[in-house]
């Protein structure tokens, strides 16, 4: 391997209103190596790569390619500098063919004006043979598998003469088999002198594929180390950090009768792929059950199915004593479900509604909010006033628009609405995502408080820390299946192994 860096990022700082996404980050890439960029969601990996690809302009810092400073103000400039990017969400046009997607913007022509499809297909075939990425140039992108689509993305970069290839969370959308194929491709690319930046938050694949690893945390570079000798445990510690965990004061759980029962649940996503496979568990009153897992392993579909937002393929959902399978949102709510959704801005709140109206979102058509279809705004406001006070929502009164509040206060409004309905079962999906420390503490205390009230709480989170500090039992979901159950004393490392499928079937 060549020690000379083909790419250097020096002191990159990128600020967005309210946060510093990259704080003085250094990074370098040598010829023919795979350099992994490791970090949790929101650690600043994607921002750094968007800076490299000319999609964002850095506020400070410089980029050197082959030792020469490069001005990468646009994707076109990045392409000309030899940088190719495979975005996490593919930049492919579904209705066009593979060849069309690959040659777009650098099309071969004949007779001066006409697009030379034959040449395009030939060239695509050529480079696909050269790098061992088998694709059919004539296939329509929509019709090929996700793994093949990813190859098309890689070919797109190679076709443009990329020497530096950025793979942004490339395995997030792949099956394990497809991931292995990808690794083979990556190895063959480096053998032919390409240099690769491999972005991931999965420890096992990073140690498997990378030559060196740079860990980012909260926008800062923590360390760059050789992959040889790095352990998953050690990397996990670097990634998560050693700060004092936000420990939540809580007594032991006193589980009562089960209030939520999920039996043999199988759910498909919008494209008809099975995302949840034969999942069964129960949550008792007075306990918090945490579901741990890497993003995209079926958590969203599981929650949607329980909440009546998505039809189930098979199985049953029982809330309290009522069968709530496929009954729709309204009946699930009436059966005693509270639901703090993953995305409070897209789903949890109507940002253009006042807080009073948002708090009424589930109960606007019952007494006392309304009667025979007649709405009583004063009653909405009164109720909102009480709740806003109880949940310490700051930054506005009942008539303030939800969009005008900070994230923490928005989440408190959602919490207030869901808890005030006195639900038997409370689903908390990513309840602290994007919140500041104070708000996190509030949400956590409140969830524990509700547990002690005797509610059954299902906590779904990508934050291991949160799962560990709140849950009384922990279930691990992997590829739509529950692969293990743990007591709260489990270490992050043990959980981490299970979450990436390592502990499959081994758990108690």
């Amino acid at each position, binding site marked *: 391997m060549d020690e000379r860096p083909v790419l250097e990022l020096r002191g990159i700082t990128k600020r967005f209103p309210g946060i510093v996404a990259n704080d003085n980050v250094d990074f370098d890439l040598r010829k023919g190596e795979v350099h992994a960029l490791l970090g949790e969601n929101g650690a600043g990996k994607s921002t750094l790569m*968007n800076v490299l*690809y000319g*999609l*964002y302009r850095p506020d400070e810092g410089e980029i050197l390619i082959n030792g020469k400073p490069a001005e990468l103000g*646009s*994707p*076109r400039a990045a*392409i000309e500098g030899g940088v190719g*990017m495979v*975005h996490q969400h593919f*930049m*492919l*046009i*579904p*209705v*066009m063919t593979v060849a*069309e997607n690959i040659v*777009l*913007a*650098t*099309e071969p*022509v004949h007779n001066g*004006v*006409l*697009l030379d499809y034959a040449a395009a297909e030939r060239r695509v075939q050529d480079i696909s043979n050269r790098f061992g990425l088998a694709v059919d140039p004539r296939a329509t992108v929509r019709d090929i598998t996700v793994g093949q689509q990813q190859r098309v993305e890689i070919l*797109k970069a190679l076709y*443009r003469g990329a020497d530096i290839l950025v793979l942004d969370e490339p395995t997030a959308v792949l099956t394990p088999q497809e991931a292995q194929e990808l690794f083979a491709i990556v190895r063959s690319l480096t053998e032919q002198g390409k240099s690769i930046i491999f972005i991931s938050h999965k420890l096992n694949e990073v140690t498997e594929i990378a030559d060196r690893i740079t860990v980012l945390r909260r926008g800062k570079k923590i360390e760059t180390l050789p992959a040889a000798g790095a352990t998953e445990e050690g990397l996990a510690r670097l990634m998560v950090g050693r700060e004092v965990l936000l420990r939540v004061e809580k007594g032991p759980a006193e589980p009562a009768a089960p209030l939520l029962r999920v039996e043999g649940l199988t759910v498909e996503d919008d494209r008809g792929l099975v995302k949840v496979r034969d999942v069964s568990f129960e949550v008792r009153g007075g306990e918090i059950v945490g579901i741990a897992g890497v993003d995209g392993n079926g958590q969203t579909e599981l929650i949607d199915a329980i909440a009546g937002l998505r039809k189930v393929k098979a199985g049953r959902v029982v809330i309290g004593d009522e069968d709530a399978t496929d009954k729709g949102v309204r009946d699930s709510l009436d059966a005693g479900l509270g639901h703090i959704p993953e995305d409070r801005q897209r789903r949890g709140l109507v940002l253009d509604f006042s807080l009073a109206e948002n708090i009424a979102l589930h109960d606007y058509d019952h007494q006392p909010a309304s009667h025979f279809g007649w709405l009583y705004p004063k009653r909405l406001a009164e109720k909102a006033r009480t709740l806003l006070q109880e949940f310490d929502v700051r930054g506005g009164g009942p008539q303030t628009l939800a969009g005008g509040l900070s994230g923490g206060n928005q989440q408190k409004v959602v919490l207030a609405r869901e808890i005030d309905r006195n639900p038997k079962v409370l689903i908390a999906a990513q309840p602290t995502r994007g919140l500041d420390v104070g708000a996190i503490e509030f949400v956590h205390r409140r969830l524990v408080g509700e547990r002690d009230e005797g509610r059954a709480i299902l906590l779904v989170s990508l934050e291991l820390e949160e799962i560990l500090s709140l849950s009384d039992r922990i279930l691990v979901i992997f590829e739509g299946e529950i692969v293990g159950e743990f007591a709260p004393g489990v270490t992050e490392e043990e959980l981490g192994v299970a979450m990436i499928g390592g502990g499959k079937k081994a758990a108690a």
Partner: protein
Amino acid sequence: MIERLLAKLPRGARAIAWVGILVGVLAFWVALPPLAIRHPILPILIGVVGIGLGIGALSRGVRRLAWGAVVIGVLGIALGYLATRSSVGHLDQVVVWSALTAAMLRYATPLAFAAMGGLFSERSGVVNIGLEGMMLSGAFFGILGADKLNHWALGLLCAALAGAGFALIHAFFAIHLRADQIVGGFAINFLAMGITGYLFIDIYSGEGTPPDVSDIPDVHLGFLKDWYFVGPIFGQLNLMIWLAALTIVATWVVMFKTPIGLRIRAVGEHPRAADTVGISVYKIRYAAVVLSGVLAALGGAYLSIGFVNSFNQNMTAGRGYIALAAVIFGNWRPWGAAAAALLFGFSSALAQRLPAYSESAAVLFQALPYVLTLIAVAGVIGRSIPPAAVGRPYKKQ
């Protein structure tokens, strides 16, 4: 060459569906002059065969075409039956195939121009409800230019410039200001109606355009004169009709055979993907919208200085919307939109000739394009799938 063409012919179930469609048309045709079969049994039999072919194709999974065959079969029976009940004199008066075809071409020409314009705009991701207004501006400025500059070619130039001007306004609001494209296009229609109406009154003080305006010439093809059927249709057509045919071919070539077309389609499907490979989304969209204005305006100019040789306030009377309908009905494809323009032109031609039967029922044919498009968007006969990013403003990162 012939082998390549043959290879492109539909096969299997699709071919069955096509045959079904043709048979359905035949069911009606036998009842019309020159054959004018007088007994209803023949159209009914033929129609049933057409429907059967449609159902056969349907069972083999060809939805859109097969439903088309079934519908046309039913229509063929109904219309064929009606024709056998009608007096031969009436039939002869209405159904003069050559005259009908020529009229169809005349009515379809402005639609085809505007539809090709709409195709460029929509394919690049910008909804263009303003086609109507752009067409109207072409009609007025075309005749104004031809009148004041004394040559129809200069009139066409004026029309094109006016259409481009209105399109530029639409483009600026839709692309740069990211205003709602429907509201913007709608405003263009109001503006064009106001400006053309205002200037028309101001310049021609309500007396109408002069009768001696230089108009677009017809193309005389003397050698066709004595050919049966073909002669009366193609022997003397307006230049713009030939240009419309050329525009359709050119649109297809540009859209599907050149790099520019690939880029336009990419921008309309997934602008960010286009942006990440270095295509300027804004430039492409500006160019496409302005081109759509130019084409729509040429269609309008044909109306005023090629077809009726005068201008009236709001003379396009919804033709821009029919062009939009043709784009949708034609599934955002040049040949499809052109075929839809012909179909809609045919229904206008019928509406013009049918009063021999019933003064008022004839106008129902004017509504046919809209009803058909409504059925198309309802997804009864397959779904129309628009470009994925149409109507969405794009914001650079």
